[in-house]
């Protein structure tokens, strides 16, 4: 009997926080730094008599996110009530577009095990409200044995887009690439900051195994993954767990399991499966998106990272690797393009951005929007190196100085004692005079004719070059130094 093989069949549901100023159904702020329970009102607290009012921008950000995933905007969509009892849900039901979403039918590309591009179909993106945040710890911060859970309704009613993939994913690696690609694209579209640390992007995965003997494991829903690493580990754990069951002839139960990140395991949810039923949300008429709005949002869509990277490779001569690094983050790519637009050579500008700029940002933990050296200035530095007005060493010195201080390029050049167009004439004469003065013994040796091999001359020449910060032209140094020694 041949060895059984198992093919994972994985679908992913990703919740992203859409980037808006107010919540989905009320005018409360979406500020995540606000103190607990300050952004609340009758609507997001589910008070009797309150009614939802849909935020225009939530729809628009949902459309942008959907378009970034190659989806089509649906002219008519609808909201439903999805019921379950839990204290994080103020109305006892969530208002969600689950059954008739605003965008549908897209895809994201990932690399399969052989490195070939593969499309993961996106079934749809629907709009819905977030639940309140729960803290399961005692007021003294103690977790174990605490008898109380704390509720912060600031998060209740935050706008979410739930993106549901088809079960086209076959490994944890594909899953992570799918999720990262999705994150990059919705960020590009300006639809979401998708900041994992702030809970703006959360993952659930449906995992099942197809066995070579024809058996199919039942679908297991794994919840509670809040990082790419957790997504990867949870899927791997689940594949292993189910494989073991199937290998021993057992049956995989259809259930919801929770990922415990600290323990690195999934476990059957203790909370009884939420019982779900949808009725049409009677307080919100159908959402109608007309062609004019679709056109307007289409025009807002920026070039997506893969398209951009292609352009860098084909039009600007960058390597694929450099192009991928630069396009990973839209702000970085925008910065790079601004450099090029300001006249920098693309290949050299790309080198500067991916090495120097990203290094400094990483060291200082800053965003590119806060970066002191504006792209036009970097372009100028790159240009001066090309024009030999700055040596590479000087350019880096200038760049580093400007990263740490508020100043303009020419002042820095002056401040660092760098003269435009090299060190010559009086400036060079002064350096030579200082070098000679500082080395009377070497001078004496040369003048006494002992420097037959020219070693001592080369030594002084090196000192002058160093003092001029590499800016003096070697030929001019030789001439001026020879003349000075003859005096």
């Amino acid at each position, binding site marked *: 009997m041949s060895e059984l093989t198992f093919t994972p069949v994985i679908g992913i549901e990703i919740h992203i926080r859409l980037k808006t100023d107010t919540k989905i159904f009320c005018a409360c702020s979406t500020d995540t730094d606000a103190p607990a329970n300050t952004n609340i009102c*009758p609507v997001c*607290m*589910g*008070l*009797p*008599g*309150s*009614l*939802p*009012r*849909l935020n225009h921008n939530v729809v628009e950000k949902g459309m942008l996110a959907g378009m970034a995933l190659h989806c089509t905007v649906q002219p008519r969509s609808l909201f439903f*009530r999805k*019921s379950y*009892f*839990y*204290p994080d849900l*103020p*109305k*006892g*039901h969530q208002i969600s577009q689950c059954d008739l979403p605003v965008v549908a039918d897209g895809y994201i590309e990932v690399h399969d095990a052989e490195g070939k591009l593969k499309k993961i179909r996106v079934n749809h993106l629907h709009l819905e409200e977030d639940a309140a945040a729960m803290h399961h710890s005692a007021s003294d911060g103690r977790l174990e044995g605490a008898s109380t*859970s704390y*509720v912060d309704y600031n998060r209740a009613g935050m706008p979410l887009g739930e993106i549901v993939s088809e079960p086209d994913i076959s490994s944890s690696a594909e899953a992570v690439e799918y999720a990262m690609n999705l994150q990059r694209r919705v960020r590009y579209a300006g639809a979401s900051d998708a900041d994992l640390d702030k809970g703006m992007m959360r993952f659930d995965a449906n995992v099942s195994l197809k066995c070579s003997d024809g058996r199919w494991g039942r679908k297991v829903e794994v919840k509670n993954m809040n990082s790419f690493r957790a997504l990867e580990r949870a899927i791997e754990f689940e594949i292993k767990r189910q494989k073991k069951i199937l290998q021993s002839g057992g049956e995989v139960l259809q259930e919801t399991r929770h990922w415990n990140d600290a323990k690195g395991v999934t476990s059957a949810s203790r909370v009884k499966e939420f*019982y*779900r*039923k*949808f*009725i*049409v949300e*009677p*307080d*919100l*008429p159908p959402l109608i998106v007309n062609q004019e709005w679709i056109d307007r949002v289409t025009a807002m869509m920026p070039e997506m990272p893969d398209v951009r990277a292609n352009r860098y490779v084909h039009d600007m001569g960058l390597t694929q690797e450099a192009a991928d690094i630069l396009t990973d983050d839209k702000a970085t790519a925008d910065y790079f393009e601004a450099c090029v637009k300001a006249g920098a050579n693309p290949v050299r500008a790309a080198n500067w951005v991916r090495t120097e700029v990203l290094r400094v940002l990483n060291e200082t933990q800053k965003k590119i929007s806060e970066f002191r050296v504006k792209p036009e200035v970097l372009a100028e530095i790159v240009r001066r190196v090309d024009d030999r007005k700055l040596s590479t060493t000087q350019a880096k010195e200038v760049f580093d100085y400007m990263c740490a201080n508020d100043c303009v390029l020419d002042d820095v050049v002056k401040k660092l004692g760098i003269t435009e167009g090299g060190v010559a004439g009086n400036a060079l004469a002064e350096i030579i005079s200082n070098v000679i003065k500082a080395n009377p013994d070497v001078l004496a040796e040369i003048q006494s004719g002992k420097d037959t091999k020219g070693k001592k001359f080369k030594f002084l020449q090196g000192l002058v070059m160093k003092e001029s910060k590499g800016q003096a032209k070697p030929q001019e140094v030789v001439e001026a130094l020879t003349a000075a020694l003859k005096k």
Partner: protein
Amino acid sequence: MELYKLDLYEASKGIKDRKFSAQELFESCRERIDSCEGKINAFITRTDNAEPITENPYGIFAGVPTVLKDNLCTNGIRTTAASRILGNWKPPYDATAWKYLREAGAVLMGKVNMDEFAMGNTCGNSAFGPTHNPNDISRIPGGSSGGSAAAVSAGYVPFSLGSDTGGSIRQPASYCGVYGMKPTYGMVSRYGLISYGSSLDQIGPFARTIRDIQLVMSVLAQYDPMDSSCFREKNPDFTHHEDASIKGKRIALVKEFQNFTLDAPIAEAMKKTQKVLEENGAIITEVSLPVVSKYAVACYYALAMSEAHTNLERYDGVRYGYTVNDAAGIKEMFERVRSYGFGSEVKSRIIAGTCLTEPSRCDEYYVAATKVRTLIAQEFIRAFGECDFILQPVTPSLPHKIGEEDEDAMKGYETDLYTLPVNLAGLPGLSFFTGYDDSTKLPVGLQLIGPRWSDSEILNAGMILERHLGSPKIADGGVK
């Protein structure tokens, strides 16, 4: 003349013309309430102990007292929906309808009784005990807005607000002998109305004259961005036109309803009213509503309960209302709060709504009902192609005695057949007074319904009916 007897128009005119002060009117109404309330029990919460506060001395209701059904949120004033589960909840905001009245200068005398969460038609299903009919205190005032109807009928206030999900304004108006208007769905903002069946609920007025109904409607019918089902483009004109006419209007009777039996006073009122209409130039015709007459009751209850059970999911004791402090777990907390907080009728409706929308039954019942509703709405559109208004009873009989509720709950629902199709199709309906029954002395009301947005035309017809049938008198409130 006691000031409490004045209608809204006279009262506000009297104050403006300085014939009497708002204070005098207020006190007269308060005395009237004091003398009748022991027998009627219309109030859940009285707010008439302080000075009359009018926010706008120049508004059209400046200084005129009113009461609100207790499912309308009032900022800082207890709002219960007649349920234990809301405890002593004081909403932190005002319902839009109340805000509009307040801004027009109306003075709040209190919050009045209703069936719990508007589920019922007797006003006896309340955590605060039953309200009595001011025309005969041994009888029900009808419901669910029984307190609002009784308060106007007994002369507590010249006008009040109620809500109508399946007849909850029109039926008590008819039982108590006042006018009651259920506006077109979308005409009046529902913001701050504690929901029962959200797609059916509509707020409307009670008053003792059509002109007063028109006055209140002119204030209520304003667009409110807080309610997404509120219509923006409509600008209805509720001006009182003395010379309005119904000449040439086709007023239809429903063919299928002719087979149902009516109590004699109501059948007589139907005849009398047709005669008045014909004498004023209207043409009496007939329309057929087969789906409505056969399926509306089932359709209505399926949808009302499906929506209601989701509307009632929010009552869990965490953020407001009745709660417990010693539950061992969250499930226990929710169970104890809801089991004690809701009355039996509400519980039955929650369970029925949950049952209908379970994944296994949803298509068969809930989804089917939404389709039947489409047929019902279409049937009315067809009917109003053939007529301008429909004349029909509000109920087949006069109010029964308190405590004589029908044992079989579903049979009670069938008496709603005349009122609830109006909510399913989102139509306007006016419950109007036709006179008093000779033997029981009880008021007899009937109903005029029209196509969507015909509210002001219905009221014009109602004005002509009032002129010929007479206005209702203030009931003695059991004082006699």
